[in-house]
């Protein structure tokens, strides 16, 4: 009880304890009740709070007298804490929060890790996930492919996006239905056309009508029965990792034929049994791969399955970018604190005398220290409030940029965790900014300060402390500017990569599925395509138009083996290439040069000899040392198009289908000889406004395919922007942060030099009286700046080198120690440091000797 009493007493301020502790102790001799302890505890807290409020009010009163100082500090803190809160909110929503699935740590992505050492996603056949059910550490496997098109429900057509999934998908992710049921294995049986729809579609297109279960709709012309409505707010796992929820889900069959083995287009996911490790599962998958290689040498000779956690696959690159940016904002906060620390130090040192007087009047050093810290805390709190508002605004302004750059960006918000982080930042900022100047106040005994202050005797220890803070600021700012400089260079490299296609004036449509997918004949498809193309060509301002099975930089990349006729290949080294079906003007629209032979023309039809065009990468890699023209390659049919030995009639320039990767071998066949069910339109219309031509293209689609919802239209510039969104986001943010860091560091230098000039005004006055020239004085001030900057730069270079190494993987071809960036930044830092101290240096030369001596 006694010990408890002493502990409870600790809650009260020391003053109270010192004065009344013994009495309370004595009173406890007469008996002590629990309610007395409670009373004592509450009193302790109350007294502390009263002290705090008094000190805060006192601090506010004092600060009101220095509005300029307050404004500078609050802006500094607002920038530092605001940037932190904004970036933390993004980091938290995107990276730190668990994925929105049931037990997300047990979910893995299945790769077919082959070709060029790169893991290849979306490359499973339907047979693969079914075969993998034999792996004992898999609790369940699923595979999925994007689907979509036009849904016709209650006489209204609308565009939908969806997924075809092996129904274990729902168990693996823990997705449930709010109405009806989720898909079951039998839904994939032949002749069964069951789908489930999202809550969103249910509400927007079915009026949230519960009788929707059992209703038949048409999906791209095919009747499908709705068997369930999924619960709202359940995200989808899709091949692109966007986590965007889908409008509908259809079931893939649970039985694979031999032919299914050949078509690899599915993204695989699985749930591990509890406590199963990635490594042991990979070992099992290696065994399975070997078995498949032996069983199906023709098809599966190149199988090497492996898994990675879904988290690192979906969030991996975003996580590394966000952690870099987070490190940058923490650096900014440190710089901001150092800056404020110096400002507070300058302010408090001019109050030395007041503090000494108060100390002489009996205020304990501790009490004075607390009051000063509370002053720092009040400033940090006001700054943080402004910072949170700033962060809120910034996140709103950046929402568009974020949405394309990061997965689950739509969940980013300033929430409880953000505010908690802001409070943590306030505490850290208060201590970091307040403690250093306090240290410099604490040591000299205040008596001597009382005597010395006002005689301009700059305590050199204090000056050193202040310079140390500036050295740190310069170091951090330099590191940040280097990192952002490297990022900028790598981003410039990325966006200036020649794509092999026209960057301007080209508009492409998204994928459209021709109606009657399962009913239409190839001839019917070809007729629809001819009609659509004619309408596109007739649009005003269109110089060339084409249809293609996949648009440049689009989501689909159909790849297949394309062996050359008459050649035999060792297992696993058959030519592998992107296959595309295009109309003749495809190359003209995209400005892809013809290097040899001819492009397709209107004589290449279903009835004429099968032809193909290969790109330069294909010719160089697979047709080396031979005349490509006339060579026959195997063009494998897809989407029910025929498989042919096609003669190469031309060679064209390369185009990239991923910006950061070198062009892949590619071959083209005429759309007329292989009319695919999926079609995109491309037009070259450089003189017409993109929005106008997009609208007219939609009109052409509506005219040619009246039952199909026209697809979205994109400019190539937009596609490039989408592909580089994450890099653009990182670059914009890091550059902004580097500018903030630099401005803060420079204002720090300015502040410290100014203060030191003021402190040394007597000295300068005397030296000017003794004949020192302007040059001497300026050189003296600048020399000090240079020394400080050099030290800061040296430390900064070390930090920059470590940071650059850490982000090397994000830099593409730019070396993390890129000499141009490093040199530029160093020169920039020195020049701006000199610039920041020039004004105070010149002020020093204008000191009048007489006034300097009279000063104070």
């Amino acid at each position: 009880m006694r010990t408890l009493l002493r502990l409870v007493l600790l809650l009260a301020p020391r003053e109270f304890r010192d004065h009344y502790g013994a009495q309370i102790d004595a009173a406890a001799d007469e008996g002590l009740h629990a309610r007395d302890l409670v009373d004592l505890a509450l009193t302790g807290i109350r007294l502390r709070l009263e002290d705090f409020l008094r000190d805060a009010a006192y601090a506010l009163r004092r600060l009101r007298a220095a509005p300029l100082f307050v404004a500078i500090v609050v802006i500094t803190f607002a920038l530092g804490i605001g940037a932190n809160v904004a970036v933390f909110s993004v980091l938290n929503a995107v990276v730190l929060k668990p994925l929105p699935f049931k037990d997300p740590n047990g979910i893995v992505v299945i790769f077919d890790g082959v070709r060029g050492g790169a893991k290849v996603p979306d490359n499973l056949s339907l047979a693969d996930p079914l075969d993998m059910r034999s792996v004992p550490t898999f609790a369940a496997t699923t595979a999925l492919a994007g689907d979509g098109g036009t849904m016709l429900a209650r006489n209204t057509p609308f565009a939908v996006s969806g997924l075809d999934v092996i129904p274990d998908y729902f168990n693996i992710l823990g997705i449930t239905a709010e109405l009806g049921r989720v898909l079951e294995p039998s839904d994939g049986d032949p002749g069964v056309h069951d789908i489930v729809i999202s809550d969103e579609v249910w509400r927007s297109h079915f009026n949230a009508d519960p009788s929707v279960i059992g209703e038949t709709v048409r999906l791209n012309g095919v009747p499908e029965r709705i068997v369930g409505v999924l619960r709202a707010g359940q995200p989808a796992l899709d091949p692109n990792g966007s986590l965007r929820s889908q409008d509908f889900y259809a079931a893939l069959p649970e039985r694979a034929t031999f032919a299914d083995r050949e078509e690899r287009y599915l993204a695989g996911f699985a749930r591990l049994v509890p406590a199963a490790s990635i490594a042991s599962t990979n070992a099992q998958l290696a065994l399975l791969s070997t078995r498949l290689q032996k069983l199906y040498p023709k098809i599966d000779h190149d199988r090497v399955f492996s898994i990675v956690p879904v988290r690192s696959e979906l969030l991996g690159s975003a996580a590394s970018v966000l952690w870099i940016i987070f490190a940058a904002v923490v650096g900014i906060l440190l710089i901001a604190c150092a800056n404020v620390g110096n400002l507070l130090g300058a302010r408090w040192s001019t109050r030395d005398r007041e503090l000494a007087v108060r100390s002489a009047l009996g205020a304990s050093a501790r009490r004075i220290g607390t009051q000063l810290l509370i002053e720092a805390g009040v400033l940090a709190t006001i700054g943080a409030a402004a910072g949170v508002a700033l962060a809120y605004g910034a996140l709103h302004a950046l929402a568009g940029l974020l949405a394309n750059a990061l997965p689950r960006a739509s969940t980013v918000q300033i929430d409880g965790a953000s505010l908690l982080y802001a409070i943590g930042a306030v505490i850290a900022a208060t201590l970091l900014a307040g403690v250093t100047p306090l240290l410099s106040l604490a040591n000299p005994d205040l008596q001597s300060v009382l005597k010395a202050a006002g005689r301009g005797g700059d305590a050199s220890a204090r000056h050193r402390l202040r310079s140390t803070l500036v050295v740190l600021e310069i170091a951090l700012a330099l590191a940040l500017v280097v990192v952002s400089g490297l990022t900028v260079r790598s981003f410039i490299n990325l966006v200036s990569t020649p794509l092999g296609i026209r960057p301007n004036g080209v508009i492409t449509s998204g994928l459209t599925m021709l109606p009657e997918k399962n009913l239409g004949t190839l001839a019917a498809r070809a007729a629809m395509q001819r009609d659509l193309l004619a309408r596109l060509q007739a649009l005003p301002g269109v110089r060339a138009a084409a249809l293609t099975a996949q648009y440049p930089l689009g989501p689909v990349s159909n790849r297949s083996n394309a062996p050359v006729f008459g050649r035999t290949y060792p297992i696993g080294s058959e030519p592998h290439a992107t296959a595309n079906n295009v109309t003749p003007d495809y190359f003209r629209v995209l400005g892809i040069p013809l290097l040899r032979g001819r492009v397709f023309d209107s004589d290449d039809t279903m009835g004429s000899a099968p032809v193909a065009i290969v790109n330069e990468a294909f010719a160089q890699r697979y047709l080396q040392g031979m005349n490509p023209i006339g060579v026959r390659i195997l063009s494998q049919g897809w989407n029910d198009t025929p498989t042919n030995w096609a003669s190469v009639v031309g060679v064209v320039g390369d185009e990239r289908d991923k910006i950061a990767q070198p062009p892949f071998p590619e071959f083209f066949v005429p759309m007329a000889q292989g009319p695919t069910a999926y079609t995109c339109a491309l037009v070259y219309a450089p003189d017409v406004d993109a929005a106008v031509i997009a609208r007219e293209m939609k009109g052409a689609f509506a005219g040619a395919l009246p039952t199909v919802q026209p697809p979205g239209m994109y400019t190539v510039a937009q596609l490039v922007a989408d592909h580089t969104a994450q890099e653009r986001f990182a670059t914009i943010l890091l550059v902004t942060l580097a500018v903030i860091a630099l401005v803060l560091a420079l204002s720090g230098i300015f502040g410290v030099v100014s203060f030191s000039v003021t402190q040394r005004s007597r000295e300068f006055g005397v030296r000017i009286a003794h004949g020192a020239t302007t040059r001497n004085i300026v050189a003296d001030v600048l020399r000090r700046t240079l020394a400080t900057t050099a030290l800061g730069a040296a430390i900064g270079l070390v930090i920059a080198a470590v940071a650059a190494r850490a982000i090397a993987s994000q830099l593409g071809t730019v070396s993390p120690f890129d000499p141009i960036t490093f040199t530029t930044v160093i020169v920039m830092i020195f020049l701006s440091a000199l610039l920041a101290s020039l004004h105070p240096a010149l002020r020093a030369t204008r000191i009048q000797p007489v006034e300097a001596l009279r000063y104070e």
Partner: protein
Amino acid sequence: MELPAGDPRALVPLSSSAFYILLALAAEERHGYSIAKEVEDATNGSVHLGPGTLYRLIKQMVTDGWIVEVDRVDSEDPRRRYYRLTPWGRRIARAEAARLADAVRTAMDRRLLSANAFA
């Protein structure tokens, strides 16, 4: 109505705890624990002053000059401190008592309290 500075009526009403402390010290000087004990006795145990509340109020009253700490050589326990009402503290206690008496009179007029309650 603005009261002139130095008028104790500006400080009333007091909290009941504060008033009981002043009452306890009105007759004689006491140490902290004995104040609490006296208050408890005088109110038949209905008012209990915990040590926190007690010493917080004592501290405040000392600061405001209502009571003073007095040195007592005869104290049996050196840890104890004794307190005495200052003339200013006494005026405040009187003002509060007068205020309460007014309230009691009003209560009697309104027949909330029998007129011979103090008989």
